[in-house]
């Protein structure tokens, strides 16, 4: 019996090739999109779930004063609290602060210095090395699998010696462990260094609480633990300390100040939600399409079903037949799908900037689940309808399954919603990329010209535990101020350079606690930009009142600041000459010398925030304004100067305009993803429409013949046939417009600067969908319309 079913299924596929190929394509395309997106979304939503004690792991964080942002606490060990099972802390380095030397090659990995309790809190697995002892070995360095491969290739890394250097610590290490970082780890690093007593730094404390401890209870206990903390500067009296669950950290934007380093990755819950909606829509489009193809399939084999019944087939035999056909389709799709999934995954990973490596069995399981879901749901309607077929009516007259129209309408409505949304998303991206930010961003090179020597390095040579405190601090300090002069003179001699400045990038701003002298409710975190006087010209700030910095009038370390309009408004300053500001760390009496016009230095999701600008020199970070374009000759000159100052170091530079484009990398990526999946949804819908057009037109061949005999032209016939199909697409478009409008209106609320929901976007989506549908349908209708009526009538 089974052989009979299989044989018949294969014969059926052969005689209904279009339906068969269409079904396979629908399943493979639909499920491939869904599986890939699902893998990504699943990874995001299960972030950090691999830690055995994920529910009990917390980061400790502090607010310096009630209006401050959350930042790192001073206190980094909480072992004395009975609720704490283990306490660990790691050093948080900012970008590009770490260098690793091996064989004269210099790498800039993301690295973490950790204490010996690290593996008691976090469950990273060591493929080589013993978790229990390795962190007590101060000579050891632990590399991740990927970084080890980058450094040593296939060579066994164990025992290899490397030099590690950071602003606060440098040492000689031997590779003694290899760690595996799962794709769903929000903590990302290339190397782990056991802490051999680094004196200070930005420690990020984590605690693992004992099972059953209430977070709120513990938070209450540690609330004031950072007030008047010994050795800390500034002394705090109004600080609040609390814990944040590791699991909640990933999607939380409130800790951006802590997450500036590369070791904490951040997710965007909004984007994940949109991808989930995409998964659902593509799932529905695939289901609708599969359902439609099945209706067409059953319509084309109705005669056979009746013959089977007359020859003794029971209903269950018909169902089994259908089941076998679908199991074959699912099986074939599963094979194609799993192969293509594995082929595409590396590209998808690269594109989405993730490192998903689901095991084969999981991929197969996910794929088969989605295939069964699509076919299962897609078959409900056809199966119910087949049950109500009358055997008798079908012997001579053909009965047809209805409902195709409604399904096509729904399917196209969803596809059009996706299309409109994708166009709006990319339009919004264009707006953000092309918006005038209010400051000059063109032809500005950002380059780190030298790496300041660690101010208090601890040097370990070989296995000898020799801590050398650098007593030549003065020399270092001198060097810091000498080098800039030399660099400046050299740079000034290059003809392609217009202006040279030093300081932090407006895109890499950090927050400092400020308040006006009159303010009584305490300090608050405000964006603060530090740079040299020249940067004012480079960025081209527009002055609204007062004056800008001036090298003649202003001197180093004077308490003078510029503020932007937003800061003036935010701090409620009426007259800048009457107000001075106080900084929590740098002291009182900061005079406001001027107010600059607001400019957009952050992502355009938000309006310009209050900004304080403080004049400083001595940054190793340079801004170089080129005369008219980014000419290669000047870049080479700068490169040579860099080599002279930093032998064996990698020369890294960016242009500010590229840095700004980087801000929108995520959006760009998502916008492309949306477009790709929208096109796939449209392709799936087109497969359905094509198949329906093929079979429906075949059914109307006689009608076409009769009309032609009675004088209809090919054009009239095509118009008549196309009209019926396009009617559905138009209805779909009318349903899609308000839904897409509402959804996009909501989405744009996330942005301070919104693109217009222009009518032409809707028109474009409508016309595009119509043209595709028209081409799809006309392929079939032309064949029918052009046929010789003598033939079509004789056939009947």
């Amino acid at each position, binding site marked *: *019996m089974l052989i009979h079913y299989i*044989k018949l299924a294969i*014969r059926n596929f052969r005689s209904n090739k279009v339906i068969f190929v269409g079904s396979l394509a629908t399943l493979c395309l639909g499920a491939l999109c869904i599986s890939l997106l699902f893998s990504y979304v699943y990874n995001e939503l299960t972030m950090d779930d691999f830690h055995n004690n994920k529910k009990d792991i917390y980061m400790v964080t502090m607010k310096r004063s009630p209006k401050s942002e959350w930042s790192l606490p001073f206190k980094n060990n909480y072992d004395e609290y009975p609720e704490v099972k283990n306490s660990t802390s790691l050093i948080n380095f900012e970008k590009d602060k770490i260098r690793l030397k091996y064989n004269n090659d210099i790498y800039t990995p993301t690295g973490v210095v950790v204490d010996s309790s690290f593996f008691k809190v976090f469950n990273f697995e060591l493929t080589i090395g013993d978790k229990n002892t390795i962190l007590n070995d101060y000579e050891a360095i632990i590399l991740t699998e990927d970084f080890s491969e980058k450094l040593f290739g296939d060579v066994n890394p164990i025992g290899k010696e490397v030099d590690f250097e950071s602003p606060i610590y440098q040492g000689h290490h031997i590779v003694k462990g290899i760690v595996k970082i799962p794709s769903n780890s929000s903590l990302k690093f290339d190397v782990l260094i056991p802490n051999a007593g680094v004196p200070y730094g930005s420690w990020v404390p984590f605690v693992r609480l004992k099972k059953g401890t209430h977070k709120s209870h513990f938070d209450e206990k540690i609330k004031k633990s950072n007030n008047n903390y010994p050795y800390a500067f500034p002394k705090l009296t109004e600080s609040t300390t609390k814990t944040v669950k590791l699991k909640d950290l990933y999607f939380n934007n409130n800790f951006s100040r802590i997450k500036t380093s590369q070791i904490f990755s951040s997710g965007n819950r909004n984007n994940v939600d949109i991808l989930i909606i995409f998964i659902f829509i593509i799932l529905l489009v695939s289901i609708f399409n599969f359902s439609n193809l099945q209706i067409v399939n059953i319509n084309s084999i109705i005669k*056979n079903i009746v*013959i089977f019944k007359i*020859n*003794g087939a029971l209903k269950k035999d018909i169902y089994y037949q259908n089941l076998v056909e679908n199991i074959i389709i699912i099986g074939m799709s599963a094979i194609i799908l799993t192969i293509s999934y594995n082929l595409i995954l590396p590209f998808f990973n690269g594109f989405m900037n993730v490192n998903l490596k689901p095991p084969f069995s999981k991929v197969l399981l996910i794929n088969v689940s989605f295939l069964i879901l699509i076919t299962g749901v897609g078959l409900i309607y056809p199966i119910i309808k087949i049950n109500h077929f009358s055997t*008798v009516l079908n012997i*001579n007259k053909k009965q047809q399954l209805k409902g195709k129209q409604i399904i096509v309408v729904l399917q196209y409505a969803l596809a059009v919603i996706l299309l409109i949304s994708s166009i709006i998303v990319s339009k919004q991206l264009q707006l953000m990329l092309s918006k005038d930010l209010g400051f000059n961003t063109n032809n500005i090179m950002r380059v780190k010209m030298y790496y300041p020597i660690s101010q208090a390095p601890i040097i370990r040579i070989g296995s000898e535990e020799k801590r050398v405190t650098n007593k030549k601090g003065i020399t270092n300090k001198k060097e810091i101020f000498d080098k800039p002069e030399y660099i400046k003179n050299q740079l000034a001699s290059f003809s392609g350079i217009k202006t040279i400045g030093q300081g932090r990038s407006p895109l890499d701003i950090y927050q400092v606690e400020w308040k006006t002298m009159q303010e009584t409710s305490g300090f608050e975190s405000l964006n603060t930009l530090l740079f040299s006087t020249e940067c004012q010209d480079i960025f081209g700030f527009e002055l609204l009142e007062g004056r800008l910095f001036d090298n003649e009038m202003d001197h180093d370390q004077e308490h003078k600041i510029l503020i932007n309009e937003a800061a003036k408004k935010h701090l409620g300053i009426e007259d800048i000459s009457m107000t001075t500001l106080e900084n929590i760390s740098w002291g009182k009496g900061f005079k406001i010398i001027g107010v600059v016009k607001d400019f957009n230095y952050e992502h355009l999701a938000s309006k310009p925030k209050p900004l304080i600008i403080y004049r400083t020199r001595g940054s190793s970070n340079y801004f170089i304004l080129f005369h008219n374009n980014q000419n290669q000759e000047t870049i080479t000159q700068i490169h040579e100067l860099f080599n002279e100052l930093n032998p064996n170091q990698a020369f890294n530079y960016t242009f500010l305009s590229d840095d700004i484009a980087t801000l929108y990398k995520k959006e760009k990526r998502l916008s492309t993803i949306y477009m790709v999946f929208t096109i796939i949804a449209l392709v799936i819908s087109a497969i359905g429409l094509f198949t329906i057009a093929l079979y429906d037109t075949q059914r109307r061949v006689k009608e076409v013949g009769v009309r032609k005999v009675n004088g209809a032209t090919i054009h009239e016939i095509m118009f008549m046939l196309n009209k019926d199909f396009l009617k559905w697409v138009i209805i779909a478009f009318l349903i899609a417009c308000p839904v897409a409008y509402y959804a996009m209106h909501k989405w744009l609320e996330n942005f301070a600067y919104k693109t217009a929901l222009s009518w032409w976007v809707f028109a474009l989506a409508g016309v595009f969908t119509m043209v595709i549908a028209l081409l799809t349908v006309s392929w079939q209708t032309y064949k029918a319309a052009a046929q010789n009526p003598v033939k079509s009538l004789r056939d009947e």
Partner: protein
Amino acid sequence: MIKTENLSKIFRTEEVETKALNNVNLHVKEGEFVAIMGPSGCGKSTLLNIIGLLDNPSEGAYMFNGKEVGKYKEGSRTQERKGNIGFVFQSFNLIDELTVFENVELPLIYLKIKASERKRLVNEVLERMNIGHRTKHFPQQLSGGQQQRVAIARAVVANPKLILADEPTGNLDSKNGMEVMDLLTELNRQGTTIVMVTHSDRDANYAHRIVNLFDGKIVTESRKDPALV
């Protein structure tokens, strides 16, 4: 074998009600060859469908092999039909996707007969129908006459007691039509009961008895002298 009492069939749509059969009383004995004649739309095919257990009557009783089957649900009708009734249609109704052999094999598959036994039975009946050399061909590769012989082979392969033929020669030329009628007559001679709907007087002459239907009623019945058959 077949006995109907006041059999009626009414088709209803939203606007019209059509009485396709009106108090039909028909009695067919085992081994008989009955032809049902009448103009288009008189209810011939409807009657044949009810007799063949493809449909239920609206009113009246239908006794098949001594059982009242008029109210049977589809599943029970199929069970009753299996192996007992074979069908032959004007348009042959072969499955295009199956070969001659596989088409004929179909009723045996649903009767769950073993493959080896199926093979024997199918080959035997195809030889009898004189198309044993065409077993691997698909229906489209055969002439109309050959297709109808395959259809008859399929109708008789399970050795049913009753064969229902709905204008079996309607799509055939006269030579092939005669061959098909000869086959049916031969089957009847071997004991199979045959009820045939036809328009053709010549075909009807092969039958023992001709029933004339008009507007859903039996109007005349004529019996031929058995000696002439």
